[in-house]
C-alpha cells in the first residue's frame, strides 16, 4: 500500500502542492486528473523524489520516509520502490531497447546479465516489441519508445508504477497501442498511479479517480461516481470543459 500524507511543495513563493493526502491500495489503478498547472506532475515526481517535497510523509510498502529528516540512502531506497514512465519516454539514447530494459536490473538490482537479458526479452515481447530488441530509441516510433519505457518500468518489479501523461506526446494513431499495453498490465494487478488527460481511458481502467486543482485534491472517488455525479463545482467545471458535448456518456 502507498500512503502520502501532508505532502507540500513550493517553488520559490509559488506553493504547488498544499498538503496532499492520498492512499493507494495494492493492485489499485489510480488516475489523477486536473487542469494544467494543478501540480499533478509535481506530485508524481515527489513520490519518487525527482522533486524533493518540503514536508510530508511518503510510505510505500513497508518503507516510510519523512521528507524533513532523511539521508541519501533513504531516497535511494525509496526510489527502488517505484518506477516511472515519462511523458517524453526518456529512454537512454545510447542503448538498445533491450539494454534500456536490462540497465536497471543489472546496475541497480545486481541481477546477472544472462538472467536480466532473459527477463527483459520476455517483457519486451509482452509489450509487443519482440522484434525490436536491438533497435535504438532513434529507430523507434514514439509509441514503440513508450512501450520500451513501460517494459523498463516493469522490469524492476516495483511496488508502484508512476505514469505521467504517457500518451500525450504521441501522435493520435499511436495512442491506442500504448493504452492497450497499460490496460493489459493493469489487469495483472500491478499498482499504478496515472496522470492522464484521456478521460475515457481513466474511466475504463482506473479503480479510483483523483481530481486535483490548485495544489490540493478537490475530490476523489470511484470513476463512475466522480465522472457522472461530481460533487464539487470545480470538478464539474473541469469535466464540462474537457467534454464540451453536453454531459459525459459511458
Amino acid at each position, binding site marked *: 500500500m502507498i500512503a502520502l500524507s501532508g505532502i507540500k511543495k513550493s517553488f520559490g513563493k509559488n506553493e504547488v502542492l498544499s498538503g496532499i493526502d492520498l492512499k493507494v491500495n495494492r493492485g489499485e489503478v489510480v488516475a489523477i486528473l486536473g487542469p494544467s498547472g494543478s501540480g499533478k506532475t509535481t506530485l508524481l515526481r515527489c513520490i519518487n*523524489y525527482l522533486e524533493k517535497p518540503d514536508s510530508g510523509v511518503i510510505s510505500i510498502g513497508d518503507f516510510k520516509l519523512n521528507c524533513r529528516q532523511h539521508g541519501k540512502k533513504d531516497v*535511494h531506497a525509496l526510489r527502488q520502490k517505484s518506477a516511472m514512465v515519462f511523458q517524453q519516454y526518456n529512454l537512454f539514447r*545510447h542503448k538498445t531497447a533491450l539494454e534500456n530494459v536490462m540497465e536497471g536490473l543489472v*546496475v541497480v538490482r545486481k541481477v546477472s546479465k544472462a538472467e536480466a537479458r532473459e527477463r527483459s526479452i520476455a517483457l519486451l515481447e509482452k509489450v509487443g516489441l519482440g522484434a525490436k530488441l536491438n533497435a535504438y530509441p532513434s529507430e523507434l516510433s514514439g509509441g514503440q519508445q513508450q512501450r520500451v519505457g513501460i517494459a523498463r518500468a516493469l522490469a524492476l518489479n516495483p511496488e508502484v508504477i508512476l505514469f505521467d501523461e504517457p500518451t500525450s506526446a504521441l501522435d493520435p494513431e499511436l495512442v491506442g497501442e500504448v493504452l492497450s499495453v497499460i490496460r493489459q498490465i493493469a489487469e495483472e494487478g500491478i499498482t499504478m498511479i496515472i496522470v492522464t488527460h484521456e478521460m475515457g481511458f481513466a474511466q475504463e481502467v482506473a479503480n479510483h479517480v483523483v481530481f486535483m486543482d490548485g495544489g490540493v485534491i478537490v475530490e476523489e472517488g470511484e470513476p463512475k461516481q466522480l465522472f457522472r455525479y461530481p460533487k464539487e463545482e470545480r470538478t464539474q467545471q473541469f469535466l464540462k470543459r474537457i467534454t464540451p458535448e453536453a454531459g459525459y456518456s459511458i
Partner: protein
Amino acid sequence: MGATFDFSFVFQYFIKLLPTIQLTLLIVASAIAIGLVVGFLVALPQMYNIPVLRRVSQVYISFFRGTPILIQLFLFYYGLPEMLKLIAVDAARWPALYFVILTYGLHSGAFMSEMIRAAVASVDRGQVEAAYAVGMTGPQAFVRIVLPQAFATALPVFSNLIIASLKDTSLAFSVGVMELTGKASTLAVVSRHLIEAYISLAAIYFIVSFVLERLLRLLEQRVQKRGLASL
C-alpha cells in the same frame, strides 16, 4: 640572404626533423592529459552551479581563452619562477619544457572545460531522471548514462583541440624548447636554406595532423552511435 633554392635539402631536412616529432607529440599529449583533468575540475562548479568556485572558473576560462598563448607562455616561463622564489622554491633551473607543458595544459584546460560543459549539457535532463527513477545513484547515472553520450558529442570538438594544440606547440621555441619549429629554424639559420627548411616543417605538421585527424575520425565513427560502449 638565403642560399639558392635546392630541393634536395627539403628531403634532407625532412629526415632530420622526423625524430623531433616525438618531442612535439609529447608536449601535445601532456597538454591534453593535463587539460582533460583541469578542464573537468573547472567544468564541475559550472555544471553544479557552485557559487564562488563558479566565478573563479569563469575567470580562469576567460583568461586562458582571451589572451594569446605566447603571452601565457612568457608569463609562466618568466613569472612563475619569481613567484616560486617567494615561497623559497628555486625554479630557475627547471627545464623550459616543464613550463611549456604546464602552460599548454592549463591553456587547453580552459577549452576542455567548455567542451565538457557543453557535452554534458547536451544529454537531456530527462535521461538522468530516468536513471534516478530506475534506482541509480548520481555517480552511476553520470558514468553509465551521461558520460558515454557526452563523450560522443565532445569527440569532434576534442579532435579540433588536439590539432590546435599541435600547432600551438610551435611557439614553445620562443622559450627555447627545441621542438619541430625550433629545430627547423635552427637548421634554416645554420645552412641558410630557409625556404627548404620551412617547407619540410610544413610538410611534417601537415602529415602529423592529417594522421591524427584520420585516427580521430575513425574513433568518432565508432563512438557515434553507442558512446563509450563501443570502445
